[in-house]
């Protein structure tokens, strides 16, 4: 499988990455290179092998349900571009 320029434009839009025409072509070639590696991997016969969701075969450690965090809003908001009344301000979003 190989990607077209249209595929790349769509992926860029979904990722909110602005690409110039030249960057789109370069990105397409790089992504197709990666897909080439994946094709090599897919050529391996994995019949009868259970798929894994993680590279390491261990299970999730769980955390006891205890509140351990304290209010650090002042620290976090000191480095935020814009805040007001304890809120982070962002460009207006309208659905």
């Amino acid at each position, binding site marked *: 499988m190989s990607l077209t320029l249209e595929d790349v434009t769509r992926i860029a839009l979904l990722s909110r990455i602005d690409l110039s025409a030249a960057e789109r072509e370069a990105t397409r070639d790089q992504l197709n290179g990666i897909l080439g590696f994946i094709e090599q991997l897919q050529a391996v016969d994995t019949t009868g092998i259970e798929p894994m969701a993680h590279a390491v075969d261990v299970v999730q450690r769980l955390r006891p349900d205890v509140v351990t965090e304290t209010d650090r809003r002042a620290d976090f908001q000191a480095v935020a571009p814009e805040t007001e009344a304890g809120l982070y301000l962002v460009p*207006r979003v309208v659905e």
Partner: protein
Amino acid sequence: MNWEVVIGLETHAQLQTKSKIFSGSSIAFGAEPNVQASAVDIALPGVLPVLNHEAVVCAIKFGLAVGAQIAPRSIFARKNYFYPDLPKGYQISQFEIPVVSGGGLAITVGSGDAATEKFVHLTRAHLEEDAGKSLHEDFHGRTGIDLNRAGTPLLEIVTEPDMRSSAEAVAYAKALHALVQWIGICDGNMQEGSFRCDANVSVRRPGGPLGTRREIKNLNSFRFMQQAIDFEVQWQINEITEGRAIRQATVLFDPDSGETRSMRSKEDAHDYRYFPDPDLLPLEITPDWIAQVKSELPELPQAMQARFQAAYGLSAYDAATLTASRDMAKYFEAATQACKQPKLVANWVINEVRRFMYEGARDEQEEPLPSEVRDGIPGRDVIRIPAEKLAELITRITDATISNAGAKKAFIELWTGPEQKVDEVIERMGLKQITDTGAIEALVDDVLAANQKSVEEYRAGKEKAFNALVGQAMKATKGKANPQQVTDLLKKKLGA
């Protein structure tokens, strides 16, 4: 021409944990903006999520309560989309292998003789995190972001498209709402957003292929759910009838206009690009763990209903009403244990206790709660008479100390007044019935002597005259005599 309505529901139930699903921040409602948003919740670089044990216990409880499969191994996935109240740029959810699959809920649609039973199948239930909140007003053209809610644990419960009317959808939503509270995994508070439903609605010709669905988002009351689905169904039928195809879309319900309107259409439909979250390992749930959670699960409403019918001889309707919430069921059982009068207790709880709880008639002046508040928080209002006191009051009816009418007066006083003893209330309000036959007989004799005209009219065949005599006799006893006893005595004396 007939149309068949097809509805599936997705419900987000906020889990009753103390901390968030992947961080140690509090999830208490009503805090100042962003004071419960830790480095993990606001997605600072380098942080890692760690799964909350209790959130998994909630999912297991739910799976057991609906007879579902609990996955021995389930996977967390990233659901990618851009929105400012989702600082990571993805929501951690479950996709291919959810923690709970299958199972279902038996529901009752309608009431009385028109009631029908139905089983709604569940597709799945999965664990995920909530997003933050966007505030679009008052920030001089900017949007304010509060991330306190980001990372709050949710169980998303998805049904098969099994429902065929808004009434069925509401019956299912109410049954689910009662169940999650019953098993203690969600507080069910719809005003605070702890229980929110999305409805997938389509219409088709009976037996035909499924129509294109539109999803109504964020229904936070049962009344709105009914209105929104009814409007949406009619809108879809009109569109198709007028030759326009339905396009898949997400819509919002506007309670003011009673209409649904499109939020986003298929053109910019999301492509979430799910993939397993490399920050989280597979969640393993062992049979031992499931067995342990099962042993701690309370008796479920349906089992309790069956037991109430068998053990106490209650009707299916009464048993279902009394098991609408665990608190009410416990109350019924405690009062019944104390006075051994299950049917009387059932009547008092269903008619009086429930009315006082839900209508907020704590005193005469108080306005009843508006229905949208009431139906969002059943059982929230407290029962103001302890079960033992209701039992005492009922005992005073069965031992003929007070009449039913007298008991109702005492009930209101006990509910609205300060804490006091049942017998003292009966004494102080003068509610004791006269049970001394001799005293009543003397009164009846006086009444007969004073109302010779009525006596003659009755003897001449006028039934009405008898009622007048009963009225006079009750008046003479100031309503404290047992009406049946008075009637019997009058009949005996007049018949003689």
